[in-house]
């Protein structure tokens, strides 16, 4: 649509004949520079993590691995058993909480979006209220203690089942983005409420559900908070995000990995280099799902903010 307005401009200059003006140049530069800012740090770390340390300490922009690709830090990381174990923990908890969270949240959002049904408005208010009001860390801790969730795997899965932010997004989607006429027609054709939900509403909201599932998955993959607060220390329950955090700040984890590296016969690797490889390991799964994720971005999430 922008192209159309462009063509019909009144004044015409050389640049405009070429299809450009200063405005375009500004827009182009602004966006490009910002995009580079977003991507370059990751590239830098990726390149640095495979660059031999002797090259890395010389500094520089790390645009390309100089001195060859050296995967020794990755070998060190993957020979540490808690790394592998934590990958499993993260993967399993991500799958479990994403599936449960999307099912629970979507179902509730759909129900609540039917505001004409008694009680739904109240339920809606109750949910949204939680966005701004919570018991706080210690009351949470005490409740989890009473529920037997402290130091348990399930504390990383169960409490997040209803995701309030995505509840609001989904509710608005069901209210405004699904044409009312579609549902009504389905009901007229003899579909039950159940049938409408499964055969009409769910198929057309597939891309929204996919996008939100992936968003929630990313949140879960990156989550270490529930472990840190409510488990504290249990070696075989550590999620990868926690291992990563410890690699960045905690010496005991670092020692573990460096020891592993030495048992492989190499020199103790420098902490900075190991940190960068760990960052890359943590980014990798997200990078893998990212292309699929992006397909659904704009089509899936419109937040339904505008009353139409």
């Amino acid at each position: 649509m922008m192209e159309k307005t462009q063509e019909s401009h009144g004044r015409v200059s050389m640049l405009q004949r070429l299809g450009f003006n200063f405005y375009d140049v500004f827009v182009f530069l602004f966006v490009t520079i910002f995009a580079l800012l977003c991507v370059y740090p990751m590239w830098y770390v990726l390149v640095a993590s495979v660059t031999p340390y002797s090259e890395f300490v010389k500094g520089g922009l790390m645009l390309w691995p100089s001195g060859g690709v050296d995967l020794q830090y990755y070998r060190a990381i993957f020979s540490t058993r808690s790394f592998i174990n934590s990958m499993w923990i993260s993967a399993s908890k991500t799958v479990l909480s994403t599936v449960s969270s999307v099912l629970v949240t979507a179902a509730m959002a759909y129900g609540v979006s039917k505001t004409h049904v008694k009680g739904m408005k109240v339920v809606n208010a109750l949910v949204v209220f939680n966005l701004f009001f919570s018991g706080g860390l210690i009351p949470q801790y005490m409740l989890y203690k009473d529920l037997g969730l402290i130091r348990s795997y399930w504390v990383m899965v169960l409490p997040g089942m209803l995701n309030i932010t995505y509840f609001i997004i989904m509710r608005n989607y069901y209210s405004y983005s699904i044409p009312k006429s579609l549902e009504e027609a389905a009901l007229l054709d003899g579909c039950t409420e159940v049938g409408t939900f499964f055969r009409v509403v769910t198929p057309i909201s597939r891309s929204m559900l996919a996008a939100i599932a992936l968003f929630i998955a990313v949140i879960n993959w990156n989550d270490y908070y529930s472990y840190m607060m409510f488990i504290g220390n249990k070696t075989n329950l550590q999620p990868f995000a926690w291992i990563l955090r410890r690699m960045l700040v905690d010496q005991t984890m670092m020692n573990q990995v460096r020891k592993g590296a030495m048992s492989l016969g190499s020199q103790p690797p420098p902490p900075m280099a190991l940190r960068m490889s760990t960052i890359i390991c943590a980014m990798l799964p997200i990078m893998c799902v990212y292309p699929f994720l992006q397909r659904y971005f704009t089509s899936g999430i419109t937040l339904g903010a505008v009353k139409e």
Partner: protein
Amino acid sequence: MKKALLILIALVMTLSLALPAMAEGRQKVTIRFAQFGNSTDDVEGMENDPIKKAIEEAVNIELEYDTGTDGFIERMETELYTGGAAELFCSFGETEKIQKYVEEELVYDLAAIVNAEPDRYPTLYKIMNAPEYKAYNKLYTGDPEKAYAFYSIFSFASPIYGGVPAYNKAILDEVNEGKVPATLDEFTAFMKACAEKGYVGYWPRNSKLTDWTYFNFTFAVPMGTSIMAPTGDAWTGFVQTGELGTENEKWELKTTSEESKEVIKLLADLYAAGGLDKNLGIKGDFDDAYSDFAAGKIGAADFGFGFPTQFADFFNRPWKEAHPDASTDELVLGTALTVDGKYGDVYSLLNWVSYHYFVPTSCDYPDRVLDLIEYLASAAGQDLIHNTTNYEYREDQGSEFWNSVNSAYGYNDGRCKYVWFAPMFAGGEYEVDFTNRDWWDASTHPIDNSWHWQDAEYASLVAYSMSVTSQFVGDLVVDLPQYYTRIQLPAEAADIRAKLAEITNQYLTQMIGGQMDIETGWAKYQAEYEAAGALKLEQMVNDAIAAARAE
């Protein structure tokens, strides 16, 4: 007479046969043991740990190890307050904390359980009925008959000082003609010379600039002051100005004194000159600093090398890890520094209670936890965790065996003892003989096996470090009278001390880092100290010491 003796022998025999059988008959329970500062990341190593298995079999329990560093004490406390504490956990005993635990009925009176079944807990029965043990009971809770904790006593064989740096010999040669700095001026000159040659002069252990101990040892002590906030010992941050051990003794809080200001100015100056690492407080001690030292970037590092084994450990890791063919003379141990020929004073106790071990009331089977402690305190348990047979060092299990055991928990320093329960009976991780000695005697005369197992190189490093330390330790360390172990600060003091520690961390960090002008900042520092109750604390400390002396 003979008959009686025979009956007695028969009785003892049946009992000794019956006791283990009874232990086996008891239900198998899980005991979580929480201790500060180990690592549990090596799942495989932990599964294959023969010592853990042996303990589990002997007491018929399942052991679960729990540990942590940052926020560990608070996590334990949160768990305790919410009814989910580890079945056996340790803390640094502060009187007011223990009193609160007791008041809230959070921990068991261990003496009551032990005294109810003396046959089941023979060693503990003996320990808990020692007069010195009861004296500590009285100190902590006011009642000599109630033991809410198992106390671990820290004792040294000889006076020891942990505040001298280790030098990288090559750098020392390059910038200081190999001469070890002996005065503060020489040391600061060394640091600056390092900076000029592109090295970091000095890296003290600092826990991201929350621990000022080594700065204090190196710079403040020779200058006759203390920059420490009052943390840990009651007298930390104080300097004694009267006559020790008499009614005239007087302790002054020196943290914000003019002398301390000079120390901080010096540090800021050194920081600006590059003598201290610019990333101090950002980088970590045991990973980055170790790594940098090993890479030859740091002239002098300070991690408590006056403790004889610490220097040897430092040589083995990180130095030897990075330089497999290193010879022992590549590192040089420093000496305490002097100003005007004087060392300054470091106050120290010969022995004190270091850890307290508690059993929380949320645990349903305290008797089983005491079974564990009883076993560990017995000759069999001590033999197991200290590599001995009947308290005699075992030659067949050398440091290699123990390295493979302990490295699962983050230690591979060649020690021949088990990292988990070694500090439980003696704070210095020595073996103690509760079977043949009484509690106090055993605790203050721990069995030190550290000479038997070391290889020649390690032994020479320890001997070297002891010989260096012995040259100055007598002039430097002031032994405090025994009543200093009985100092009890009022509950209010804990709040004040916590606030002061936070203030110190902030001001010193910023002043040394050059973000705050010292001349103008110092008055604010003093004002905040006063507002937080520094004077009140000073009074409390002096009163508490006087009260302990009068007792």
